[in-house]
């Protein structure tokens, strides 16, 4: 009995330490974004001046806008192309299908530093060069495999007779997809879309390689700002991003139980 108690207690301690490890830095950063002292000095004095300053920081705001735009467009492109690719891989048998599926995984494993270098060389070679468009192309290439992997996993649980039943009732390919297959894989599509958004919005290495001064994304801008000299405005913008993205995640988790519904 005593040992079970101790084990139970150790288990709980482990969970709390894990959560602290995950969240403590974020919580401290969020608190400091409301502290008067820019150098993490205590005692804590409440202020919102850093948030007000943020509004004046044209560079941070424009980088945030760039990041959001690129992440949203990346998500849309990846969800459409990725879901279509997953459906094609699910429905059709063709030569080299296994090979193609195997080729989808390495890009996830290749270090971004190397992918970034390769993209920079390639984009210069074909005349695209650097800039927001190059960043967008890079993000789509990075995020697409994630969407295909997640949607394909969801399709593994789909009964092909459902498509056959729909066809036997007179539905054409598009009607079958829209009314039977898509509703089933929707949780996978949403999860894949969230992945794509995260891959793009968090992306630093590839964006850093492909951006030009003044035409950059938020992570690159934050990095540049820290190098110039740390300001609590960075804490402020980071806190806003964390709150928004956590709210987004919780909302999605609430509406879609991933992989749950049978």
């Amino acid at each position, binding site marked *: 009995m005593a040992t079970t108690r101790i084990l139970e207690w150790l288990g709980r301690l482990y969970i709390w330490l894990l959560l602290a490890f995950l969240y403590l830095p974020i919580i401290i950063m969020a608190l400091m974004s409301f502290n008067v002292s820019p150098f993490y000095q205590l005692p804590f004095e409440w202020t919102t001046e850093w948030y007000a300053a943020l509004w004046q920081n044209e560079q941070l705001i424009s980088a945030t806008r760039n990041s959001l735009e690129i992440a949203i467009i990346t998500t849309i492109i990846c969800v459409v192309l990725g879901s279509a690719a997953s459906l094609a891989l699910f429905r059709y048998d063709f030569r080299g299908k296994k090979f193609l599926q195997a080729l989808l995984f390495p890009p996830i494993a290749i270090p971004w530093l190397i992918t970034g270098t390769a993209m920079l060389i390639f984009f210069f070679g074909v005349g695209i060069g650097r800039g927001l468009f190059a960043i967008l192309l890079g993000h789509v290439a990075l995020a697409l495999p994630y969407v295909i992997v997640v949607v394909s996993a969801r399709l593994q649980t789909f009964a092909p007779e459902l498509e056959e039943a*729909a*066809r036997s*009732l007179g539905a054409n390919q598009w009607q079958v997809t829209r009314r039977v297959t898509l509703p089933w894989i929707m949780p996978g599509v949403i999860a894949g879309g969230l992945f794509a958004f995260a891959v793009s919005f968090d992306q630093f290495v590839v964006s850093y390689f492909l951006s030009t001064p003044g035409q950059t994304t938020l992570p690159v801008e934050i990095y540049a700002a820290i190098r110039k000299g740390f300001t609590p405005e960075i804490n402020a913008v980071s806190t806003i991003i964390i709150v928004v993205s956590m709210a987004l995640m919780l909302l999605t988790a609430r509406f879609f139980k991933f992989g749950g519904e049978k």
Partner: protein
Amino acid sequence: MAGVQVSNLSRSFGAHKALDDVSIDFADGGFYALLGPSGSGKTTLLRQIAGFDFPDTGRIAIGGESVERVPVEKRRIGMVFQNYALFPNMSVADNVAFGLSVRGEVKAVIAAEVQRALDLVQLGKLGSRRPHQLSGGQRQRVALARAIVTKPRVLLLDEPLGALDKALRVDMQIELKRIQREIGITTIFVTHDQEEALTMSDRIGILREGRLVQEGPPEEIYDSPKSEFAATFLGDANILRGDTTGTGIRLPDGTAIAAGAGVSLAAGTKASCAVRPERIRIATGDGIADHNTNMLKGQVSKRIFAGNNSTYFVERDSQTIKVIVQNTGIERLAEGQEVVLSWSPESTVLIAVS
């Protein structure tokens, strides 16, 4: 509504001949069972008629119109799948409405037709339920309602009762037959259950290894099977092998067996006789000595009592003969007892050995 003609249909998957020159005429309004063991090609044939797969050679006509290259969505068929394949994201009513809805019917018409179809399968009040809230039998009914609501030309059923337990299966057999009669639709039913085929269908086609073995009304196939396979697959049969005498066979030990039905064969070739277990009389002593009667002596090796009848396994000349005796309360034979088996030539079918 329409009949279906299948002519010289063949389909191979690699080296495997799934269908080999199959021709069947499915009459308009009839209830037809395709019976065979797994791998016999019965499901392949059904999928060809449905249009999920196209034949290598041969013709399929529905209502006289050639359809062998028409895709399933344009064939106007109704199909019930083995696992029902109900759309999990839709209510029962939306499942049934699907076929009408993709055709672009107006809402009021759809609602009325769906209600009529649900009433027909006695699920009129369950339209708002989800498939996962239904029992197996109810799902089966929804699948049937969904398949017939579009007024298809032919109804195809792929082992629809396979997933139900025995008592429910018998109920659904009766129910399915009632609905089929009520709307008079040509129905093709794939099953591996011979009892189901016998009780439900007007005609049966027996398939084996992609070929049609025999085709006809249940009584005809049961009473005059044309092959040992047909005799043993549809019902139970004792097979006796020997040399033909023209109207019967002579067993290796010299006993003559007279046959009143089946093919006529040139004397001297190998042939077999099939006898149904319930047609054989079993008696102690000398039995009934009649020149019209086939007779064999043997010894009871095993008896299985099943309430309304008993099955005796009788050993003779290294062969076991099965006899089913109705429980009349008169005679009960013990294991090890010497017995005489007798049956009439009319109960004996002569079969050519291929």
